[in-house]
């Protein structure tokens, strides 16, 4: 063969420019992926660094004192920490049965599929409503509507410390209810997804040995989907703890500790939203300390959620 024909069949070697583009592109995407780690670490580092002054001054006393006095420079976040934990856990206790119940209802073959799909989409669209709009709605519509009912509870059960103050507007109870609205879509959609992933063979086997629909759901389907449901619940807990706007607008923002769920209270995030803009000096550092506590709490919940999903998930082939 002559030279012209062989060159046609020679293997093409990659030009250096192409190789450089390849390597360069890889380096760029590695750098971009690393940005996640960089951002995450710097958030922690910055919040920790800014709060060192308060950490060394108050130590753990900060967690158990509810003093908040910029004049005497005495700070403690007990009310806010209690408010954060109480509102998020109480809202979770209300939202779990509602969310999981809804998820079961829209995965089971009870009503026609298009109605179930519509309900599913509507619940997910609820997650698209920004929290500040829910806050607006809570302030002007929900709170005036539920106040008479809360008053009845106060008059009947006022002797119990949890109901011992008169509901006069903003307070912990409306904040809990608006949190329920905010975390319902998370619990519902994640539970729905994990219920749908349960293989139909399990259901058929249960029906085959004579189990009724709800025996199947309670004894077979839910245990098989429990990892996803638990993960969703923990994710919702993390969201509830960090939720800011709607809670700030309706919780009343008071640092006076009260057992009553009708009294105004505080959460860490609403404290930040309220005071950070005008704070200076050691107040900033104390707010940063509170922010650090909030970060650690949500981090623990999120890591635990990821761990439990891995731990509990059953593998079906």
């Amino acid at each position: 063969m002559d030279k012209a024909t062989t060159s046609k069949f020679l293997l093409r070697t990659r030009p250096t420019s192409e190789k450089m583009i390849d390597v360069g592109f890889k380096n760029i995407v590695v750098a971009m992926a690393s940005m996640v780690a960089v951002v995450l670490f710097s958030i922690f580092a910055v919040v920790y660094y800014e709060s060192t002054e308060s950490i060394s001054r108050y130590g753990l006393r900060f967690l158990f004192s509810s003093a908040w006095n910029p004049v005497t420079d005495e700070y403690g976040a007990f009310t806010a920490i209690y408010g954060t934990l109480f509102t998020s856990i109480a809202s979770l206790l209300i939202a779990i049965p509602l969310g999981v119940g809804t998820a079961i209802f829209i995965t089971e073959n009870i009503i026609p599929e298009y109605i179930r799909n519509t309900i599913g989409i509507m619940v997910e669209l609820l997650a698209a409503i920004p929290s500040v709009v829910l806050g607006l709605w809570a302030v002007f519509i929900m709170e005036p509507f539920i106040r008479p009912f809360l008053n009845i509870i106060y008059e009947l059960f006022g002797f119990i410390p949890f109901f011992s103050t008169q509901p006069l507007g903003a307070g912990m109870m409306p904040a809990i209810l608006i949190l329920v609205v905010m975390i319902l879509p998370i619990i519902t959609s994640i539970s729905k997804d994990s219920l749908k992933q349960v293989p139909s063979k399990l259901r058929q086997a249960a029906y085959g040995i004579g189990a009724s629909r709800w025996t199947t759901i309670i004894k077979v389907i839910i245990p098989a989907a429990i990892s996803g449901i638990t993960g969703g619940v923990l994710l919702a807990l993390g969201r509830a703890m960090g939720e800011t706007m709607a809670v700030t607008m309706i919780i009343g923002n008071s640092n006076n500790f009260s057992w009553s769920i009708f009294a105004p209270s505080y959460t860490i995030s609403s404290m930040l939203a309220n005071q950070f803009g005008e704070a200076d000096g050691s107040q900033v550092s104390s707010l940063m300390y509170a922010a650090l506590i909030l970060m650690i709490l949500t981090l623990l919940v999120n890591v635990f959620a990821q761990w439990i999903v891995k731990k509990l998930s059953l593998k079906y082939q």
Partner: protein
Amino acid sequence: MNYTSQKSLTYNPSLTRNIGNKSLTIISALFAIISVLPLILVISYVLIKGGSYINFDTLILEPEPPGDDLLSAGGIGPAITGTIIMGVIASIISIPIGVGGGIYLAEYSKSGKFAKFIRFGSNVLAGVPSIIAGVFIYAIIVSTKILFGSMFSGIAGGISLSILMLPTIIKTTDEALKLVPNDMRRAAFGVGASKFTMITNITLPAAFSSISTGVLLALARAAGETAPLIFTALFSRYYITSFDDLFYEMGSLSVLIYNFALEPYEAQNQLAWAASFILVIVLLTLNILSRWIGTLGAFSKNKV
């Protein structure tokens, strides 16, 4: 036979298990109704109450200081442009980084240690409360005046929103690329494509619709966020008139709602409702659009 009359095979509604079944079904239906109720109530209040305050002036005018004029509070024009500008800034930052990070996770290191760590990290970052993003940006950009000496600025607000968008975009890009069949990658390599060409010409276009779904959802979430903006972008009643204005306080729909909802004046409260109307319409449109785009792709989740 006596046996058949005792244990009939026909459905007997008064059996305990059938009563239990029925009541549990009714309870779960009730729960579903209760769960949908807030959406219907919030949407109808926002549409009816907010929609009734919408007119041309509301959309165009600048808001007036509370208490100046008890009858009219001006409009929400600057807040609309502010939300759009900060959304664009956040997208410019987070879309390249997020898509790039997702490409790394799905194409270069499917199950390496570093990739696992980045996936874990983006899950953790997604769980970081939005107000913390605001506090963080306040500490590193606003209080240090690092952006040419400006303190509160639209750019700082956009950056804090980009932190919230980043994990969503990384996750959806990662998942979208993983749904692209490996055969397509092998075919591309087989005809001599480099990895760069394979990613940019084959897998990214194939995953495009799923990635845009994620980007739109992230943008929708960012546009509704208030907490990261209240001490980064703050609020402004004026339109931006020049590029320099990006380095000053900037208004946004969500902060306008927050500020004006807590004012004791009726006119300001009405403006908050009008702003919620616009915000909710935009966010619902973005959400529905992203769902629709998600169904278009060849390898979208909804089809597989």
